[in-house]
């Protein structure tokens, strides 16, 4: 069984190939890296897949599975270049998306931005009110859907060239008929448009959050699904018939079809792989408290993992670009800081680094691809922290003279600094920017970094590790065995996962016969839905694991907590268990239970997972006495943070065994990554090849 993990970053596309004994080439792990193609990510993905197969000398048609982490959807939301979306909404409520929850992002500010007003997902001109009215609490129709108005709206949107349309009517979680019918009409007039109903994307009460999630889905939908379909057909054309899967924001993987339907689930696909990968490698050595910092060419993704767990945000707290998106996501933050971050002097004479990146084209000045602006990579070259002849193991030709020239011209001379001091300044500023972001995800939440290991990875991570750890006061640095492909490896360590929800509001203590029957039917339908998806993925029923949840609250509260629903068909006993489970969860979370209050069901949720085969990462051979001597490549000068220039040995990391201790100053060289051990620090290689650097 041969599996590829392919992770697209802003600068590089990283790949890992794991083969087993059954494959023609036998058991093995291969890594590869190609420059990302930002206009169409699939070009680099295809190139990488073909090349890694060639590298492993395996026939392409032997590949069974490809798991893909993509930033396609994320980039659309960041760059705000999604589809022009049209919306049909209930008459009288044209501005739900403009008003939001009418709460400002800041209490104490006069000059704040309101992203849902200044960067709307659906412009007001494209929001068309339709006569229709469904009434609470039973979903009765007060005003029937005016089909002529729907037709006229669709025709108007078509004339305007709108290609993506959402239907968002009030109370569609009670009665979805109007939304579904309006969609049919829109589809008949705009057969090629991307059309979705709010009840299909997220079947939940609260109009703004539901409409916003649906709008985000439609905003990123056309481009994302085009990309995914295109990639799928490219693979087939190349004779690769592997199952293609995508990493979702919740850390589980899903099929192309389900992601085309709900691209809103893959908004955090790219960064999620990194967190999962970091978690996997740290776990090999039993590290439970880690801060992952995945530094690529363009951005850094940061997540804090406590007690060995990956934190998933409550969908009620999930925002993307300031817009609520009610889907489960891993708790992480992304900032514009990476190897390609550009250093410059701003109009007011301020010394800035990033968030703009030189990306892979033109890339850092030293790449000699036409870039003249200095980047973080250029600074590392100047300081001797990256060796120009060892970039990608020597595969990447770089010219250090161009780094010096760029730093001199753009930073050192304007600021009256030496080139060395300017380069040190670039590193200091970028490290500080990252440290601030790490703090906001850790210290600002009361996490004491002194109990945590900082885990830098991504090609550009390990060279910054010790300085960041020092800035943060983390207890140590942990560089995983293959820093550049940690995210890609993460893709091969997670499970298939699908979730489905259905809204049903009723008091459980006094549930009516009708609602009770509905609940039974809904749970069955939700189970069938996720089971069906897993079966489509080729999972046997025996391997399907279902988690059934009732999201409840005390009648009158506004926030739901999750209560487990016991397996099997719902009956009165199981219902009593659900009620008791809710009381217990409430007590555990808030320290109080209201025994006399009615428990209200709001949403039923079923999560279906299937254990995938996990990447196996073997232990390293034990270090022997002569390893260090053999691994020594050469010694060169390297400038450290205090400005001191020291003759620093370079070791080939792949020749070092478990238990090896290396004293700083030293550099550990790998194909795509350099780990820095400053003077006064000691590095130790763990049983699984993690490098632990501490003072």
């Amino acid at each position, binding site marked *: 069984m041969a599996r590829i993990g392919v992770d697209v970053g802003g600068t590089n596309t990283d790949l890992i190939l794991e083969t087993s004994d059954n494959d023609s080439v036998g058991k093995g792990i291969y890594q590869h890296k190609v420059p990302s193609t930002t206009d169409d990510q699939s070009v680099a993905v295809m190139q990488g897949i073909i090349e890694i197969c060639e590298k492993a000398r395996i026939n392409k048609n032997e590949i069974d599975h490809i798991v893909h982490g993509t930033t396609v959807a994320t980039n659309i939301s960041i760059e705000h270049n999604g589809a022009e979306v049209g919306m049909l909404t209930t008459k009288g409520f044209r501005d739900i998306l403009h*008003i939001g*929850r009418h*709460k400002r992002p800041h*209490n*104490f500010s006069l000059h704040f931005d309101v992203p849902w007003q200044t960067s709307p997902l659906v412009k007001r001109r494209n929001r068309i009110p339709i006569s229709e009215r469904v009434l609470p609490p039973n979903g009765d129709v007060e005003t029937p859907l005016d089909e002529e108005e729907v037709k006229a709206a669709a025709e108007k949107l078509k004339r305007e060239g709108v290609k993506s349309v959402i239907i968002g009517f009030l109370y569609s979680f009670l009665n979805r008929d109007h939304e579904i019918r309006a969609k049919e009409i829109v589809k008949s007039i705009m057969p090629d448009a991307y059309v979705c109903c709010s009840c299909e994307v997220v079947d939940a009460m609260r109009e703004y959050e539901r409409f916003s999630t649906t709008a985000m889905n439609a905003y990123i939908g056309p481009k994302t699904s085009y990309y995914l379909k295109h990639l799928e057909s490219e693979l087939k054309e190349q004779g690769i018939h592997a199952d293609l899967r995508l990493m979702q924001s919740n850390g589980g993987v899903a099929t192309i079809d389900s992601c085309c339907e709900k691209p809103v689930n893959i908004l955090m696909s790219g960064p999620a792989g990194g967190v999962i990968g970091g978690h996997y490698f740290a776990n090999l050595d039993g590290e439970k408290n880690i801060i992952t910092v995945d530094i690529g060419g363009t951005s850094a993704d940061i997540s804090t993992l406590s007690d060995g767990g990956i934190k998933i945000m409550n969908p009620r707290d999930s925002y993307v670009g300031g817009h609520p998106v009610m889907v489960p996501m891993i708790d992480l933050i992304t900032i514009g800081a990476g190897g390609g971050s550009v250093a410059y002097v701003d109009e007011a004479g301020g010394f800035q680094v990033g968030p703009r990146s030189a990306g892979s084209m033109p890339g850092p000045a030293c790449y000699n691809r036409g870039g003249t602006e200095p980047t973080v990579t250029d600074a590392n070259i100047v300081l001797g922290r990256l060796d120009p002849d060892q970039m990608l193991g020597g595969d990447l030709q770089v010219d250090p003279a161009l780094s010096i020239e760029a730093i001199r011209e753009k930073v050192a001379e304007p600021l009256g600094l030496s080139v060395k001091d300017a380069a040190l300044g670039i590193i200091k500023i970028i490290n500080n920017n990252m440290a601030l972001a790490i703090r906001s995800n850790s210290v*600002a*939440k*009361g996490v004491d970094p002194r109990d945590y290991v900082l885990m830098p990875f991504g090609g550009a991570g390990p060279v910054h590790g010790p300085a960041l750890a020092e800035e943060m006061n983390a207890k140590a640095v942990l560089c995983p065995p293959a820093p550049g492909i940690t995210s890609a490896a993460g893709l091969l360590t997670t499970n298939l996962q699908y979730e489905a929800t259905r809204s049903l509001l009723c008091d459980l203590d006094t549930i009516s016969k009708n609602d009770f029957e509905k609940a039974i039917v809904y749970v069955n339908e939700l189970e069938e839905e996720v089971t069906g998806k897993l079966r489509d993925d080729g999972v046997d029923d025996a391997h399907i694991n279902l988690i059934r949840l009732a999201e409840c609250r005390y009648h009158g509260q506004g*926030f739901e907590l999750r209560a487990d629903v016991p397996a099997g068909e719902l009956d009165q006993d199981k219902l009593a268990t659900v009620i008791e489970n809710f009381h217990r969860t409430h007590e555990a979370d808030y320290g*109080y239970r209201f025994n006399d209050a009615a428990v209200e069901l709001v949403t039923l949720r079923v999560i279906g997972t299937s254990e995938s085969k996990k990447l196996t990462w073997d232990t390293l051979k034990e270090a022997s006495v002569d390893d260090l001597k053999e691994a020594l490549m050469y010694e060169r000068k390297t400038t450290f943070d205090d400005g001191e220039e020291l003759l620093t040995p370079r070791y080939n990391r792949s020749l070092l065994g478990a238990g090896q201790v290396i004293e700083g100053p030293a550099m550990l060289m790998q194909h795509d990554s350099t780990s820095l051990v400053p003077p006064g620090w000691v590095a130790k290689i763990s049983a699984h090849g993690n490098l632990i650097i501490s003072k």
Partner: protein
Amino acid sequence: MKNNTVDPITLQVISGALDTIAEEMGHVLYRMSFSSIIRESQDLGAGLFDANYQTICESESTPMHIGSIPAYLRGAEQTLQDGEWHEGDVIVHNHPYYGSSHTPDLAIIIPIFYQGELVGFSGNTAHHIDIGAATPGLIIDVGDVYAEGMLFAGLKLYEKGVRNEGLAKMITANSRASNQLMRDIEAQVASAKLGVKRFKELIDRYGKGVTFSAIEQLINYSEKMLRQRIQEVPDGEYRAEGFLDDDGRNRENRLPVVVTVKVEGDSVVVDLTGSAPQTPTAYNVPFEGSCKVAAYAAFRKLLLDACSLEVPIPSNEGSFKPISVVAPKGSIFNPNFPAAAEARFTQCNRMIDLIIKALSPVLPDKVIAGSSASISFASYAGMKEDGDYWVFLEVNEGAYGGRPKSDGPDSIDNLMANTRNNPIEDLGMHLPMICDRYELRDDVMPGAGKHRGGIGVVKSQRVLTPGFITHESERHYDVPWGAFGGKDGAVGKTEIYNYSDSKSIKEMPSKFSGYVTKAGDVMAYYSPCGGGFGDPLERSAEKVREDVLDDFCTVEHAYEVYGVVLDADLRVDVGATEKRRQAAS
């Protein structure tokens, strides 16, 4: 202990931990509570306070609560049941002449004892839907503070850990929404208990000395940051005035608001002398718990704008210290006991708006044009089939004035308000009410300007059963001001009509109490629109066109006020626009 400076890392960690404790307290309170005014609107505050009643940290919920709890604590000290704090006590307090913000905002306060010593307080405030006032929910047209409902002053709901069942029973017996009131109080207790627990854990971890040194350093830091900004404002006296519609009873009697900002060195005095005398209704502002708090908030917005700071300043006592407030006794901002003082929000918001206006000559790049500076606080109530009352409190938004670099945000909570709306669907599922309209206003244009004013909201709520509406609002007469050549905004209005006959509209005053509704009555609230900032002729023609495409602006308004000529396909006629703009300037 005082001379020990805490190392920068520990200081940052403690600062982050304190913020997190306050946020967590707020979270528990709104997630656990039952009435929508707390759980959805988040009309609440929560934090930790030291033994001298200084704010250590406070949650980012609504600004009106931030900074009010120290006054509650001082008032509670004066009125404390048996005169002493004991471990396990839980205090309930809401007396407006002993520091409360106003009567419906009940505070729950728990003293924090560490190794037997009183080291501080964990407390929160939340707006309750009914504490037994003369009319359900809100109250305006009453004669004294006793008509506002139950008054709690330093009362112990728990004495040394034992619940005072008599007091609980008394509270339950005196509210039209006793279930929600008592359960929301329990949510407040849970939140305050969490604060106690977390604060003790923090002291366990870092030690009392280090923790309190860090707190002192953080307070000093916030104070220093604000003083530096004040220092940059030229010394002098800056004055602005406006007026309020009426007191909720005497309809023809406009009420002046006069604000004089006196800047001297690194301190500021806000002098409200010249404002209206206290009113005979509840339209008065409790001085300690509301008036001062609004002045603190004004300067934090103006001078420590969270969006222009690279690092946010810690939310603590330091940002209150440089500011003092003067309001003559017997005035609307400092009434004499027993004047009623429940309806105090719009006066506070106008004060902030006028502080901004007063400082506009010296802070042209920091101030903004006139905002709605009002609020719409509506109480809908009726009787359920079983004879119990239902009560719903709704906060409606306003709009901002145009700003030096951007348009005023539309339809958003303004200045001192920052609640969240109640989802329409949640409302309809639980109460006999239907929302008929929730959109931007299209009956008026916002203040034109290089950066236009924000557009106000229109919200129409229909009641399905007979009942009562009380509405606290403002600005039906005094238009939000345009700044630096910008045009004035638009006043608000409130209408009531029946769903069966939407043509027979009754125009309502901005404030009214206990209006008796029939089934199917609809109240439509139109909030004021913000004033413009800068000359409208300087707004880019393309931006004006975009506004027309989005129906934020009509073709006629674009021509008349902005001097932008659009053709039949709504494209800018560049030549004609240039001519029109030249003629207009």
